[in-house]
C-alpha cells in the first residue's frame, strides 16, 4: 500500500512548483551551551510520510517541537504548510495536528469531553462537533470508554484518544512523536493502519520513531538523526543498503561441525556468545543458496539457521560509530538504549 503511495509522491518531489509540507534549512537549536540540533535540512513533500529515526536524546522530539511551533529554533528557512514558522506561527498551527510523545489529553474529563473540547477549539458548529466526535470515537474504538474520565484509560487507549483529538480539526499535516513507543503489537499495528488511512486521504505525516521497522512500514522517506545531525536520508531500502548488519546465523550441534563450517566459510565471524557463526548477508536469494551449498559441499549439517535483517541497532552502529572505535554489536545496543 505504501508502495502505491510512493509513485504520485515521487512525481510531486520532482515538481519544483509544489510547496513542500515541511521545508527546513539549517535548523539549529541549543539549550545554553548544549547544542541539540546542529543545522539540519528537511524537505517533506505534501502527501508523503516522512520518518525521523533516531535513538533517545538524538533530538527527534526537539525537531517536532520546533516544527509544531511549541518552541522556537534558529533556521535559515523554516516553513510548515507553506507558512513561515517564526513570522506566522498561528497559520502553521491552523494547518497542523500534533500528537506528542507524552499523552496530551485532559485526564480529569471524559474521552468524549476531550473530543468536544477540541471541536470547540476548532470552532466547529455544535452539531458538526458532535458528529465528528462520535465518528472518531467509533473509529478509534473508544465508544465504550467515552463516558469515563481519561485518567483511567490504559496507555494504548490514551494514545488512541490523543490521536483522535489531533484529527478533530482535519489537519493536513500531522506530527506524530513516537506514536507507538510503549504500545503492544496489536495497538501498534492499529496505529500503522490509521496512519495509512490518513495518507490515503492526502494527509502529510511526519513521524519520529526508534524502530526501523516502523519507518520501513510507513515512510516514503527516512532521515536518521544522530547527535543533532542528519546522518543519512533515503528510502528504507536505501538505508538498509548502508547498513552491514544483515547476516545469517548458523548454529551447530558439536565442535567438529563448527570447526569444519568455519573452514568452509572463511568470511564468517563468531556471534557475541561465541556459539554460532555469523555470515554477512544482504538479503539476496542466490547468496543464501550459495551459503547452503557451501555448507553441503563441506558436509556440515547445521543445527539451526536464522536470517537477520538490519535493525535500528545496526543502522546506528553503522552510521554513528567513528573509525577509531569499533564497538561490538552488544555495545552498539548500549549506544542505542
Amino acid at each position: 500500500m505504501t508502495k502505491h503511495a510512493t509513485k504520485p509522491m515521487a512525481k510531486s518531489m520532482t515538481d519544483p512548483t509544489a510547496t513542500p509540507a515541511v521545508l527546513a534549512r539549517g535548523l539549529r537549536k541549543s539549550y545554553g551551551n548544549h547544542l541539540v540540533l546542529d543545522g539540519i535540512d528537511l524537505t517533506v513533500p505534501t502527501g508523503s510520510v516522512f520518518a525521523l529515526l533516531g535513538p533517545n536524546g538524538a533530538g527527534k522530539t526537539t525537531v517536532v517541537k520546533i516544527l509544531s511551533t511549541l518552541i522556537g529554533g534558529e533556521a535559515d528557512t523554516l516553513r510548515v504548510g507553506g507558512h513561515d514558522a517564526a513570522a506566522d506561527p498561528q497559520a502553521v498551527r491552523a494547518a497542523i495536528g500534533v500528537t506528542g510523545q507524552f499523552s496530551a489529553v485532559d485526564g480529569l474529563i471524559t474521552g468524549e469531553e476531550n473530543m468536544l473540547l477540541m471541536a470547540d477549539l476548532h470552532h466547529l458548529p455544535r452539531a458538526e462537533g458532535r458528529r465528528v466526535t462520535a465518528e472518531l470515537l467509533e473509529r478509534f474504538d473508544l465508544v465504550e470508554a467515552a463516558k469515563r474520565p481519561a485518567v483511567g484509560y490504559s496507555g494504548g487507549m490514551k494514545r488512541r484518544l490523543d490521536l483522535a483529538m489531533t484529527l478533530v480539526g482535519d489537519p493536513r499535516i500531522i506530527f506524530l512523536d513516537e506514536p507507538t513507543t510503549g504500545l503492544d503489537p496489536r495497538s501498534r499495528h492499529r496505529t500503522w493502519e490509521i496512519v495509512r488511512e490518513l495518507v490515503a486521504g492526502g494527509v502529510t505525516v511526519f513521524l519520529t520513531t526508534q524502530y526501523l521497522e516502523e519507518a520501513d512500514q510507513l515512510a516514503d522517506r527516512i532521515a536518521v538523526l544522530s547527535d543533532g545531525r542528519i546522518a543519512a536520508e533515503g528510502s528504507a531500502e536505501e538505508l538498509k543498503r548502508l547498513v552491514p548488519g544483515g547476516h545469517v546465523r548458523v548454529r551447530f550441534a558439536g565442535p567438529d561441525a563448527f570447526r569444519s563450517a568455519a573452514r568452509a566459510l572463511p568470511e564468517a565471524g563468531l556471534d557475541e556468545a561465541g556459539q554460532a557463526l555469523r555470515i554477512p548477508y544482504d538479503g539476496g536469494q542466490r547468496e543464501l543458496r550459495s551459503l547452503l551449498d557451501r555448507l553441503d559441499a563441506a558436509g556440515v549439517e547445521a543445527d539451526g539457521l536464522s536470517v537477520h535483517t538490519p535493525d535500528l541497532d545496526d543502522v546506528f552502529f553503522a552510521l554513528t560509530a567513528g573509525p577509531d572505535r569499533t564497538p561490538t554489536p552488544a555495545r552498539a545496543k548500549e549506544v542505542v538504549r
Partner: protein
Amino acid sequence: MSTLSLAVRDSSTMLRRNLLHARRYPSLTLNVLLTPIVLMLLFVYVLGDVLSTGIGGVGADRSDYIAYLVPGILLMTIGSTPAGTAVAVSMDMTEGIIARFRTMAIHRGSVLIGHVIGSVIQSVVSVLVVGAVAVAIGFRSTDASALEWLAAFGLLVLVATAFTWIAVGMGMASPNPEAASNNALPLMILPLISSAFVPVETMPGWFRPIAEYQPFTPAIETLRGLLLGSGIGNSGWLAVAWCVGLAVLGYFWSTSLFRREPK
C-alpha cells in the same frame, strides 16, 4: 475571525473546561470554603462575647460582633479561592494537554483567562455560601440600598479578579502543585492580619502599618460601609486602586510566564 471574538470564544471554551473540572472534583472548592466558615463560627461563638464588648463597648452583644466580622470573613473567602486556583493552575501546567493547546490556532491567553473567570465564579459562589451561613447565624445588613448591594457585589468580584490573576501567576511560577500551595499562603494569611477581626486601631503601633497598608483592609472597610453604613472615607478608592494594580500586575506576570518557552 477577529482577535476579540477569537479570544471570547476560546476563553469561554476554556472556562467550560475549568467549570467541568470544578464540578467533577468539588473537593478543592469545598476545601477552601471550610476555613472561612470555621473561623467565622469560632470567632462568633467562642470569642464573640468578649470581642463585642471590646469593639462595641459595654452592653454590646454577640450580634454586634457578627456584623463587624462578616464583611472580613466574606473577603477572606475571596482570598482563599485563589489559593486553590494557584494549585489548579500549577497542576494544569504539568498536563500534556497544555502543550497541545500551544500548538493549536487558538487565542494564546484563553487558557489563563478561562482559569481566571472560572475561579472568580467559584469565588462568588463561595461568598454566597459563606454569606448564607452568616445570615443563618444572625448577620443582617442594616439599611443597604440596592445600589450599595450592587457596589458590594462589584467590589467582591473586583477583589476576586485581582487576587485570582496574582494566584495564576503564582501557579505558573511554581515548579509543582506543592510549591504553588506554599506560595499562595500569603493570600490566606493576609486577611488574618487585616481589620477583619478587630479594628486596626487596637493593634500595637509597630504592627498597625502592616494591617493598614495592604489590600484587604480598605476592601473590608469599604464592604462594611456598604453593608452596614459605617464610614468608608478613602477606603473605597484605595481598595479599587489596589485591585486594579494587582490585577494588571498579575495579568502581565501570568501571561509573560505562559509565553515563556516550555521545557
